[in-house]
């Protein structure tokens, strides 16, 4: 069984975490659509926001994935784009949030 990605978040932010995670699911669903139509600029826009917001909430690794995906989109590196999108999906599939 794949290992869970456990992230500990400040309990002051507990109230806003569900909507943040819900929005990431929406991101992934849009990304799937944009990958099919090779719409890199829309993926870049999602990645740019992810790079700025995920780390702020405490999801540092997810923020790095966002920054790398944004960069891959800017350089039109299709293979890297697909790879980072998969990493995004994988991260969300295995994420487990704890509060302290």
């Amino acid at each position: 069984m794949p290992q869970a990605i456990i992230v500990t978040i400040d309990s002051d932010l507990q109230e806003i975490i569900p909507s943040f995670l819900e929005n990431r699911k929406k991101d992934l669903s849009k990304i799937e659509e944009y990958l099919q139509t090779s719409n890199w600029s829309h993926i870049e826009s999602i990645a740019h926001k992810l790079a700025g917001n995920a780390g702020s909430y405490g999801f540092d690794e997810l923020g790095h994935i966002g920054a790398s995906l944004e960069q891959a989109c800017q350089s039109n590196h299709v293979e890297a784009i697909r790879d980072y999108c998969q990493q995004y999906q994988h991260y969300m599939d295995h994420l487990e949030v704890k509060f302290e």
Partner: protein
Amino acid sequence: MKSKKHILILDDDLDIINFMVKVFENVGYGAHYATDTDNFFEQIKTIGPHLLIIDHKLGHGNQDGLHVIQNLKKDPHYKNIPTFLISASTSRQLVTLATQLGAEEFIKKPLQVNVLLQKVKKSLKVYELPTIEFSETKKVKCRSEGEIIQIGEAALKIKGPIKFCEGVELLIRSPCLDKLGCQACRYKTNPYQRVVGPGEYVNEIAMKGVKEETARKIRLIKATTKS
């Protein structure tokens, strides 16, 4: 009791907005937000915020965050509101440009709660106006600039940063009034006051002791302006 400080955020990312609103509300600030520039400027007028936080990249259909700061700093009504630029970019050029345009702080994304709050707290303290406790002070002397926007033979209207109570005696220094021969006039505020913008009021002031020659000059101004 100190009044609550209000922060207005402009960002097109609702997740970052939710994050900042939560962080600010947790420590007792009033947090407001806009996702587009039109709504942002609208809210500045209605809220009268103490601090503005603006994202650099504002998405399609919006001005760039730097342009928003440039417009704010050109406007005499808003130029003194402390303004922060936030961005995922750390380019030296961007930081320099933001500072040159008048941004008080540049904050890098991802945001760190302690850094954000520390800078906000510091900025609000620097720009805080002195608080006057009226329960302890019966008379307050103050001086400010204003603009005469209307004049009649018995009263004038002045636009400025102070909202006066009725019956306040004023000493007005104005080359324009001197030219009209008002040196010996006495001024007292009428009950009329109107808010015309954030921190900007129009007060009607009664003029006593207006000489006939002065009244004639005022009538002449009014006649010239009308024609």
